[in-house]
């Protein structure tokens, strides 16, 4: 397993470097855009040149890239044009809040989707399977923002059950102290993920159920419930774990929408506001952080996979 993990980590480092190159290239895609964004579109050429010199934007690209990498490694992404705070501080404030939102909703989504997928696989082709299939298709096909606003319309505006705005507290503890306000954003993100995960689990479980070892387990006299729990669940989980790692970007995309609908002060909202105000340092800093987080996420998924699958765990033991 060590060899596998070493190789996998090596790949992840290559990808992190790639993400840096990509973000760096994007800043320089439109020359002078950073200055214009900061100084306004009517800024004079002299002021732009001054700005570029002050920010080191007039140096050769290679040199700029080296200092970009150096600064990024130190966690220095510059200062926000619009919020006038170090980007690293802004990100450090918001990242834990996303941990709460995305962690909760992913956990919830998995605990609904996995049993649902297996249930559908067992009942394949029967009424319950068809009904759940239709439900997950509709959920999957709904624009996230529409779904979120629909929930607000029903549960906040009509029924007055839940607040329409997410908790605004600074700290994680403060956010958790207001669970009612957390319900709608978490439910939105959960249900959107449930649809995708349960489809994967269903097709994976259908594949597992056709395996010979499932028949062997039955031939031992094992009740179906135990066959599912002991032999089908873990084997069907394996491909889903990989999908989970790959779905990190989708989850983040959902977060951008959900955070702007519910005004949840996380990375998604920060990024969105930065994009609308052309706040480049914030955009690039958060892109880099999100990219690295995604790489780590899929690396973690692969580690989980290798722990779940003894064929990888014991390959060179």
């Amino acid at each position, binding site marked *: 397993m060590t*060899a596998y993990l070493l190789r996998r980590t090596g790949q992840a480092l290559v990808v992190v470097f790639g993400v840096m190159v990509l973000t760096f290239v994007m800043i320089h895609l439109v020359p002078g855009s950073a200055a214009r964004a900061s100084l306004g579109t009517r800024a004079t050429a002299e002021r732009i040149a001054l700005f570029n010199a002050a920010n080191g934007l007039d140096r050769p690209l290679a040199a700029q890239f080296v200092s970009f990498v150096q600064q990024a490694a130190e966690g220095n992404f510059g200062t926000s044009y619009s919020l006038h705070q170090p980007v690293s501080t802004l990100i450090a404030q918001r990242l834990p809040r996303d941990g709460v939102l995305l962690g909760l909703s992913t956990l919830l989504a998995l605990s609904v989707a996995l049993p649902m997928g297996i249930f559908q696989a067992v009942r394949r082709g029967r009424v319950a399977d068809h009904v759940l299939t239709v439900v997950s298709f509709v959920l999957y096909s709904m624009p996230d923002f529409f779904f979120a606003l629909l929930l607000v319309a029903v549960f906040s505006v009509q029924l007055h059950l839940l607040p329409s705005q997410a908790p605004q507290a600074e700290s994680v503890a403060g956010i958790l102290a207001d669970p009612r306000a957390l319900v709608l954003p978490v439910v939105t993100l959960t249900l959107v993920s449930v649809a995708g995960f349960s489809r994967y689990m269903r097709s994976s479980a259908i594949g597992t159920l056709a395996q010979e*070892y499932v028949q062997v*387990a039955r*031939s*031992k*006299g094992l009740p179906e419930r135990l066959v599912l729990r*002991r032999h089908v669940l873990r084997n069907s989980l394996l491909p889903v774990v990989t999908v989970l790692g790959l779905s990190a970007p989708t989850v983040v995309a959902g977060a951008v929408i959900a955070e702007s609908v519910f005004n949840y002060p996380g990375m998604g909202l920060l990024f969105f506001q930065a994009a609308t105000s052309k706040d480049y340092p914030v955009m690039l800093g958060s892109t880099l952080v999100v990219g690295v987080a995604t790489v780590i996420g899929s690396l973690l998924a692969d580690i989980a996979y290798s722990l779940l699958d003894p064929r990888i765990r014991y390959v060179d033991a």
Partner: protein
Amino acid sequence: MPPLLEVRNLTTHIRTRRGTVRAVDDVSFTLEAGETLGLVGESGCGKSMTGLSLMGLLPPGGAMVGDSSVALDGRELVGLPERDLRRVRGNDIAMVFQDPMTSLDPTKTIGHQVAEGVLLHRGCSRAEAADRAAEVLGLVGLPHPRERLKDYPHQLSGGLRQRVLIAMALANEPRVLIADEPTTALDVTIQAQILALLADLRARLGMAMILITHDMGVTAGHTDRVNVMYAGRIAESTGTDRLFHGMRHPYTQSLLASVPRLDQDPGKELPTIPGMPPDLTDPPGGCRFAGRCRYATDRCRTDEPELTGSDQHRYACWHPTDGPLPPSATAAVPRATEAAAPAVHDRPLLEARGLVREFPVRGARIPGRGRRVVHALSGVSLELAPGETFGLVGESGCGKTTLGRLLVGLDRPDTGTVTLDGTDLGLLRGRELRRRRRDLQMMFQDPFSSLDPRMRVGGILREPLQIQGIGTAREQKARVAELLAEVGLPERGAELYPHEFSGGQRQRIGLARALALTPKLIVADEPVSALDVSVRAQVLNLMNRLQASHGLSYIVISHDLAVVRYLADRIGVMYLGRMVEVGSADDIHLRAAHPYTAGLLKAVPVPDPQLERAKLGTGISGELPSPVDPPSGCRFRTRCPLARERCADEEPALRLFGAGHTAACHFPLQQPLPDTPAKAATDASA
């Protein structure tokens, strides 16, 4: 007292989208304690479905219908509530499945999987179940069972996994063991070991056993009575000896006759069974075998024969035969090599010298341990005369497929050369190599993956001509028709897709494609091992006929010694990347010098009960060592009954045992010719 197991009027239907498949139709038999009943037939005849019906483990849509009855010790199992049935399953009746690679849960330890059934049925503690698991794993011959309880299935070889599966089935000392093709996925050497193990356990535990198999040799050696099944029904049912020597059903007769045997006269065509088994969604009226039967009359096509005869011998046939077919009356095909003796050619068609091929072990470059490699081929040489057929045999993992790929230029050796007609293939590159490919063609094993499913057969057969730029479009079309005729397929077959053909027909298409470029050599890698017995004979006959008419050379790679014996003039026996013995077919079969060759031959089951039972021992013990760390000296020494110290220290050289007969052994079974240095021996083998 009722028999241990009594099956009456068992009828199993499976509802599918295409209609209801009558997989098992009115099958009745009994089984007594301590006996082994064989269920024999080709794929799709209902033998596996009979086994699954007894276990109550039918696939979705499957059900036992009518007055089907399965009684264990007088207790009816059909219609029993699932709860009660589960107490029988794995406890009173247990099953061993075919494929040891897919039958074990990859995420659970073998200890867990064996103990699971014990825990379930015996209501004992976990520790007791683990003890029992270690005990049965020891019983089935797993070395150091207690230490291996924590092993995962992928850490074991196929043979050991099959032993684990048997241990799982035996854990609760069932009274009936159903073994569904338990050795089909294994090498002959391991097959012999597993079958001996099953026989020994049956005797020791006093179980009754149902052995489901398609292999007449396995049937001959390991059953007391046999039910021959055809198209879901029992065609013939009798004692094993009587079945082989006094069969009454023409199907049994043809089935036995179409199996190539080691003592077969290779000059004779194999008798074949024409056509295919009927579609069980709509079985024909009358006798189901009538369409393929040489004795069929109008009555067979309209009236269905009942099982008749005495209790000792029942058969369902209107025109019963009496005993086996006389030796084939079909005229012998003159073999190319007999017409033109190979010694006449001063230059071989193909010459391989000192081929070495090593593959790095996947993904495991651990710092400090260096690069680990699989030694697939370690210095193999061979020569092939024009028109000759060379057979390559050996257990899986011996390097025969790697050698085949090197010989046709699909892969390149690390060192060594392959020379075709005086041209070194290793020096050819790009366009030149692609042009040269027309002389070398390959016939593949799997008829389902060797033809592009998205191309029509006409396109498949034209493709080699298009690539090599041979002929105009019209000429190519004519050539396609010619090729189809040559392999016995209708011309309109060109318009069809591969999936519209049966396995045997696809294998013919594969052969036609190989012939399209009129090659000098065809390498056939396991050409018939994916086919049913009756179809196998058709393809083998065709290969022989085409060789004679085209003056082709073949290299036939097969794990089946009888197939190689039937096709080959000379045979090479491979072991762990080395050629251990080369000789004429008779040298190998009658005068084997290497103990490995002798053991391999002994392990091949022969379709003759007397011969099979007279065998002592199983041929070769143990399993193939890892090709990553092959044993020093003679690689076979770890499994050789004759091995001595010298075998570990010194690598044996090839020595000459007769004209063209060489073997590499320090203590051979035959007397070598005096003082022949290795080099001379290799040269003489030409």
